[in-house]
């Protein structure tokens, strides 16, 4: 007997619909595109990075820099967390030392992407820029997808929530993606986020957007005078089959490495990403005062159990997602009512809290709300403000801006307001530009021009190899705390095998909180249950590796040198003795790690005809 050879998946049997919009003349062209590769089939950045690689862009704010808005293969399907929308382009924020913009993307959840897909559109490519503010409306027409253009001048100046609610009044069956004041002031704000409407927001009227924050995709929208996107029409969520039910069970059950840990505590979970704070603080590794933990216990005031004494916390989920990972924070009114303030995830609650020297739940929630309303990436604005506070502490005789210092809520709030309103380009253009301009780069917390998430660089050399945000495109940020790994071999293995697979989420349409990309077999079953395509776990992993490597090679094409693959100098020059984790990240370690990682990728890069890694200059 012979076992039949598995039939290789043929991507050319699959097509997708691309809508190319010329904002210069408000025209739209729809085309059906045949896939050439598995990554084309997966969608999201699997397609957008290939398109970006075909453009030569030296300035993010040029008409030729496209903004690509697309979905993944599983967006809008019954697979749990299949709610992702991606925004890709050359970033105004992330840039090489040569000044060239890096290819970037940001992702956000809830129903906008699903509505776009249900309208019959997989990818939208926005070319050029509009002369006047515009909203683009996608709908389910009688004979297929329909596109309309609406003047949007009346939306200017509104915050993200008000823009969405204004569009909701005009399009009651719509979902929305908008920029805030930050994106409108794109010339002085390079960290503008895109706000996505949520079902909860539209029904409750509460300010509960989701955000595609990283890399300034909202600023790119602002440059294009694209104030909002609308996707209207009826829900077309497919029925849940028994196979799909099984897949969704695997996505949340612990034995699959699923997402139970993000569930509320009373459901046996860890209580969302907020729980990270207590874990990192146990190692004195929760960022404080610009990523410089003090060893004091003040951070504990931001533990959930302490914040709950003053504020109401509710765990909520995205539309039709069973993972209630959001911790929404409400103020208790004297009359017994509750007023929504903000959503607490680990990144914003730490970076707009303890990392600014603020250890008060209410004040932190108000800063999170402020950044969200202004449409600023919470991570980038918070890290850049932390740098300013650090600088002011080091230079009390010549402080920056309003002279704000760590813990000074009013001064910090003023900095964020002024940034969002375009009045502080020093902050709005990010910490790399600010620190280089001041000549003090050692404590500027970025890697390759993108501000760090709330995990200390001392604990994560994987940051060097993240291509679109330190914790969103390389899954190594908690490796040291979780597993105690400190050797070159261990880090090389994780970076080149499992860590990079995280970018697969940003192709296929699933949220990273499913947390099981490492289990490609479950993803393959999800694809089969949702689409009938039998891609296979191995082919999926190979495609994700190619996506990652294309993204890495795009960095080199945009001028990144070997020297830019490093961590803030403070890590090497002034180690923090308060951190209770092994101090293994030295310059020699980083140098050796790069060599090993580049060697591991070499043959694959060659096979893909992609450029080789930058070389360390000879002494």
């Amino acid at each position, binding site marked *: 007997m012979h076992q039949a050879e598995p039939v290789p998946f043929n991507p050319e049997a699959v097509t997708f619909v691309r809508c190319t919009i010329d904002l210069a003349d408000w025209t739209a062209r729809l085309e059906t595109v045949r896939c050439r590769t598995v990554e084309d089939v997966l969608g999201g950045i699997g397609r957008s990075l290939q398109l970006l690689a075909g453009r030569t862009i030296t300035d993010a704010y040029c008409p030729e820099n496209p903004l690509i808005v697309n979905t993944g293969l599983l967006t809008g399907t019954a697979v749990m967390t299949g709610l992702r929308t991606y925004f890709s382009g050359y970033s105004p924020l992330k840039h090489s030392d040569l000044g060239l913009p890096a290819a970037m993307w940001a992702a956000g959840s809830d129903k906008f992407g699903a509505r776009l897909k249900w309208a019959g559109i997989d990818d939208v490519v926005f070319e050029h820029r509009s002369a006047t503010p515009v909203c683009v409306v996608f709908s389910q027409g009688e004979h297929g997808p329909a596109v309309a253009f609406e003047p949007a001048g009346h939306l200017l100046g509104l915050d993200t929530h008000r823009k969405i609610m204004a569009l909701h009044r005009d399009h009651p069956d719509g979902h929305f993606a908008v920029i805030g004041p930050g994106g409108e002031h794109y010339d002085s704000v390079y960290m503008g986020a895109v706000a996505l409407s949520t079902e909860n927001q539209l029904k409750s009227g509460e300010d509960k957007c989701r955000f595609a924050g990283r890399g300034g995709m909202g600023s790119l929208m602002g440059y294009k005078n694209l104030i909002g996107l609308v996707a209207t029409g009826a829900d077309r969520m497919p029925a849940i089959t028994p196979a799909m039910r099984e897949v969704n069970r695997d996505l949340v059950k612990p034995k699959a490495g699923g997402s139970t*840990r993000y569930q509320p505590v009373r459901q046996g979970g860890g209580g969302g990403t907020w729980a*990270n704070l207590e874990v990192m603080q146990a190692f004195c590794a929760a960022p404080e005062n610009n990523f410089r933990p003090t060893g004091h216990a003040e951070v504990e005031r931001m533990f959930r159990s302490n914040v709950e004494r003053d504020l109401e916390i509710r765990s909520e989920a995205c539309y039709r997602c069973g993972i209630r990972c959001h911790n929404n924070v409400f103020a208790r009114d004297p009359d017994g009512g509750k007023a929504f303030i903000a959503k607490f995830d680990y990144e914003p609650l730490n970076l707009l809290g303890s990392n600014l020297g603020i250890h008060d739940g209410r004040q932190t929630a108000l800063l999170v709300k402020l950044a969200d309303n202004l449409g600023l990436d919470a991570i980038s604005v918070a890290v850049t403000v932390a740098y300013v506070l650090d600088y002011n502490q080091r230079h009390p005789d010549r402080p920056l801006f309003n002279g704000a210092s760590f813990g000074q809520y009013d001064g910090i709030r003023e900095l964020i307001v002024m940034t969002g309103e375009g009045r502080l380009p020093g902050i709005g253009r990010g910490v790399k530009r600010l620190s280089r301009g001041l000549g003090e780069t050692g404590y500027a917390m970025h890697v390759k021009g993108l501000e760090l998430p709330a995990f200390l660089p001392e604990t994560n050399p994987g940051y060097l190899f993240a291509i679109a945000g330190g914790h969103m495109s390389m899954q190594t940020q908690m490796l040291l705390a979780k597993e105690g790994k400190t050797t070159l071999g261990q880090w090389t293995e994780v970076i080149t095998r499992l860590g990079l697979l995280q970018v697969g989420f940003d192709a296929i349409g699933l949220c990273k909180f499913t947390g099981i990309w490492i289990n490609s077999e479950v993803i393959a079953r999800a694809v089969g249950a949702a689409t009938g395509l039998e891609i296979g776990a191995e082919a999926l992993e190979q495609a994700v590796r190619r996506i990652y490597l294309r993204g890495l090679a795009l960095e080199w094409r945009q001028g990144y040198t070997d020297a830019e693959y490093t961590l803030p100098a403070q890590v090497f020059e002034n180690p923090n003795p308060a951190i209770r984790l092994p101090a293994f990240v030295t310059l020699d370690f980083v140098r050796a790690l790069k060599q090993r990682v580049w060697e591991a990728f070499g043959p694959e890069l060659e096979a893909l005809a992609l450029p080789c890694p930058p070389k360390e200059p000879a002494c």
Partner: protein
Amino acid sequence: MRITVKLFASFRTGRFQEKVLDVRGGARAGEVVAELGLPAPGIVLVNERHAGLDDVLREGDAVQLFPPVGGG
């Protein structure tokens, strides 16, 4: 033998922060987890070093147990 167990984050809910426990000689870390009715921990430290559930404990050990964590 006596060991000290310290719990973190959601593991403390309805349990304790730190407690000295009597366990049988040669007990493994996983037995302590089961005894306390905890779900599988994300991080196990014994005497401040990363350990596994199969690691054998000794008299006087300090065991720290953390819930699974991730994301950002």
